[in-house]
C-alpha cells in the first residue's frame, strides 16, 4: 500500500532519513519505534505529503506522494504529535472544518461527526470550546479529526504524548477497532509498550535508518539471549552490576538493572555471585526480553536516552 524507495531527507547537515526503503501492506498496524530525533516524524511528514524527499520516492497505492499534488493526500489521515486543533472553536466546529477541507458536506459530514464524537465519548461535549477539554479529550478529538474522511492510511505521530492511562487505553481501543475494520495504520512511538501492544509489525529506526523490521517475535529472535534478569539499581547491587558487564549487557533504566547474558553464560554463576555479595535472591527476576532490549542490542543505547 505505502511504499518507500531509498528515501533520503536532509535538513542542512543533518540527515533525518537515510536511504529508507519500506513497504506497508494494506490492513497492517505498523509500529515505527525509535528515540526522539530518530527520523520518525520526518518519515510521517513525507508520507503525509507535507515534504518532499531529497532522493527516492514514496507512493500510496502506486501514486507518488508529493506536496505539489494536494489530491494525493485524500487517502491519508495525519494525527500530529501536537494537539493540532483550533482551541477557541468547539469540537464539532473543528470536525466540520477539517471534514469540509476533505470535501465532506451536508448529511454525510453531520453523520460522520456524530459517529466520531460518540465513538470516543465526546458527544456531550461537542459544543464546548476545545480549550475547555481535558488533555485526554483533546487527544481523542485530535485522533478522530484525522479519521473523519475515512482515509486508507492513518499516520499517527506519537499520538499519546502526555495522555493519562485511561485516555491512552481509549485511544488504543479505538485504533485497534479501526484496524480490525481494515484501516492501515502507521504508528510512531518511543514507548515500546505501545508498539508491543498495538503493532503487528515493527520497524526500529535510529539516526534516519531502519535498523530492524519484523513482528515482535521476529525482532526478539535477533537477540543473543532468551531472557534477561532484572534487579533494583541500588548501592548494594552496584558491585554485582559491575561484575556482570564482563558477561553480557547491563542496562540501567527507571531504577532497575537489566542483565542480558551472553549465550554461554550460566545462570548459576549469576546467583553464586549475588550470594557472595550478600544479596537476597528474591529481588532478582528473570523475564522475557522486550523491545527495549532489542533497541539496546541494535544501537547500544536505551530508547529514552
Amino acid at each position, binding site marked *: 500500500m505505502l511504499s518507500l524507495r531509498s528515501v533520503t531527507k536532509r535538513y542542512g547537515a543533518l540527515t533525518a532519513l537515510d536511504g529508507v526503503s519500506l513497504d506497508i501492506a494494506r490492513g497492517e498496524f505498523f509500529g515505527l519505534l525509535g528515540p526522539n530525533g530518530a527520523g520518525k516524524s520526518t518519515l510521517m511528514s513525507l508520507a503525509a505529503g507535507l515534504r518532499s524527499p531529497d532522493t527516492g520516492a514514496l507512493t500510496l497505492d502506486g501514486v507518488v506522494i508529493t506536496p505539489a499534488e494536494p489530491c494525493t493526500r485524500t487517502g491519508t489521515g495525519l494525527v500530529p504529535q501536537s494537539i493540532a*486543533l483550533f482551541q477557541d472553536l468547539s469540537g464539532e466546529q473543528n470536525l466540520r472544518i477539517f471534514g469540509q*477541507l*476533505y*470535501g465532506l458536506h451536508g448529511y454525510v459530514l453531520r453523520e460522520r461527526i456524530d459517529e466520531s464524537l460518540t465513538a470516543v465519548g465526546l458527544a456531550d461535549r461537542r459544543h464546548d*470550546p476545545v480549550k475547555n477539554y481535558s488533555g485526554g479529550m483533546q487527544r481523542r478529538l485530535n485522533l478522530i479529526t484525522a479519521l473523519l474522511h475515512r482515509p486508507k492510511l492513518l*499516520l499517527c505521530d506519537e499520538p499519546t504524548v502526555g495522555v493519562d492511562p485511561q485516555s491512552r487505553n481509549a485511544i488504543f481501543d479505538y485504533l485497534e477497532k479501526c484496524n480490525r475494520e481494515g484501516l492501515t495504520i502507521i504508528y510512531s512511538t518511543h514507548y515500546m509498550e505501545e508498539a508491543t501492544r498495538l503493532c503487528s509489525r515493527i520497524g526500529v529506526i535510529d539516526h534516519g535508518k531502519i535498523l530492524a523490521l519484523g513482528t515482535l517475535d521476529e525482532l526478539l529472535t535477533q537477540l543473543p539471549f532468551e531472557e534477561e534478569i532484572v534487579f533494583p539499581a541500588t548501592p548494594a547491587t552496584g558491585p554485582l552490576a559491575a561484575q556482570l558487564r564482563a558477561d553480557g549487557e547491563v542496562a540501567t533504566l527507571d531504577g532497575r538493572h537489566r542483565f542480558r547474558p551472553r549465550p554461554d553464560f550460566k545462570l548459576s554463576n549469576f546467583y553464586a555471585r549475588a550470594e557472595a555479595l550478600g544479596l537476597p535472591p528474591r529481588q532478582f527476576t528473570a523475564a522475557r526480553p522486550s523491545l527495549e532490549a532489542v533497541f539496546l542490542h541494535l544501537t547500544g543505547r536505551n530508547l529514552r536516552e
Partner: protein
Amino acid sequence: MSVILTLVRKDLATFRRNRAAVAVTFLVPIMLIYIFGWVFGLNQKDKGPTGIRLAVVNASSNPAAQKLVEALKADPAFHVITTTENPDKTKRLLTEEDLRPQIHDGSYRYAVVIPADVVSAAKIGLHLKIYSDPRNDIEAQMVNGLLQKTLFSNVPQLLGQSLQARAKQFLGDGRFEQFNRDIANTVATAFGGDPAQIQRTIESGNFGLDQLKQPEKPADSTLRRLDDASAAAAAAPSGALAKEVAPAVTSSPSTTQDFFSQIIKIDQEQVTGKNVKSPAATRLVGGWAIMFLLFAVSGGAAAFFDEANTGVFQRILSAPVSRAQLLWSRFLYGVLLGLIQLMTIFVMGQFMYGIDIMGHLGNLIAVSIFAAACSAFGMLIAALAPNAVAASGLSTLLVMVMSATGGAWFPTSFMPEFMQTIGKFTLVYWSMEGFLQVLWAERTFVELLPTLGILAGITLIVMTVAIWRLNKKTIFQ
C-alpha cells in the same frame, strides 16, 4: 474555492470566539477615537476645555480689572479661585504671596495676578503676571490663549487705557487733553454726536473694540462703538460708510482671532471640503481606522506562528489543501475583517461626529477594500519575523512608524519635507489619501483610480515578498 471559503469561515469563527481580538479590533479604536474626539474638541457639544483651576489675584483698583475677573469667572473654561483659607478656617482673598506655595502643593497649576500697575504710563500694553506649573506645553499655551481671548473679548478698554496713559505721559496733561478734544471734535463733525461725551469715552480707553463682536447691530452704529450713550445722540453716518463698515463685521462669536481678523481683512475661499461637516474628525477617524486595521492584521501574524507551532498548518496541509489556498484564505480573511473593521469605525464616526459616510458609501467601500488588501502586511510580518514574539515587536514598530509618517496621527505637512517623502512609501499614507479623497474632496471613482492603483501595487509587492519568504521558511512543514 470551497477550500478557501472554509478556511476563511474558520478564521472568522476563530476571531469571533476570541473576545480580546474582537475588543482590540472594534471597541478599542472606537473608544480611542471618542476619547481623542474630546481631546481635540470634535464632539459637537464640546466647546473646549472646562474647569481649569485658575487662581486670580486682583491688586488693581481699575474697574476694568474687576470686570476681567468677573469675565474669567463666567468663562466655563476656568474654575476661578480668588480666596484661600486661613489656619483658623476663615476665608480671605488670595494674595500674590500665596500663589507660589499653593501651585507647588498642587492646589492649582495656573494663577494670574492683575497688578496695581496693570495699566501703566511707563509702557504701552497691559501688565499681567502669570504663575504656572505647565505640566505640558500644550495646556500652558491653551491657558494663555484662553486668557488673551477673555481679555480682548471682555475688557479691551484696558488696552485703550494703556494707550491713553502712555499718550498722556508723552504729551503732558495740557496737550493730552487738547489732543483728545481735537479727536472728539473731528468725530463729532464727521459723524455727529456730543463732542464732550465722545471725549469722555476716548479718555476711558473704550474705543469700541468690544463692539466688533456685535454683528447684529446695524451698520449705522459706528459711533455706538465709541459709546452707546453718546451714539444715541449721534447722527446716522452716511450710507456709503455704513456699507464699508458692515462687511468687516463677521457673524462669528467674538474672539481674539475675530478682533485681528477685522483689522486685517482676508478674503478666503475654500475650494474643497466645503461640505465636510466635521473636517478634523474626518482625518482623525480615517487615521485611527487604518492604524487599527494594521494592528489587527499584525495580530494575524502572531496567529500564523501559533498555528504553525501547534501543528494546525501541518494538519491543514495534510488535507488536500495547497499552500496557495492557505495563503489566499489568509489574505481574503484579512481583507474581509479589515473591510468590516474600517466600515464599522467609519459608521461610528458618522454617529459620533457626523462624518458623511452614506453620501460616499460606494467609493468609501472601494477605498476600504484596497486599504484592507494591505492586510497582506500581516503575512509579510509573519514571513520576516523568526517567531511570534519577534512578529509582535516588529509589527508594533512598523505600524507606529507608518502611522506617524503616513499621516494617521496628524497631517504629514506638519513634518519636515524628507519625512513627508518617506511617508509616501507607506500604505498608511495612501490609505489616508484615499479616505480623504472620498470624504473630503468628494472625488469620483475614476478620480480615485490612481490612488487605488497605488494601494493595489503596494498589496502586490507586499504579498509577493510575503509568499516568497514564507515558502523559504519551514513554517508550513
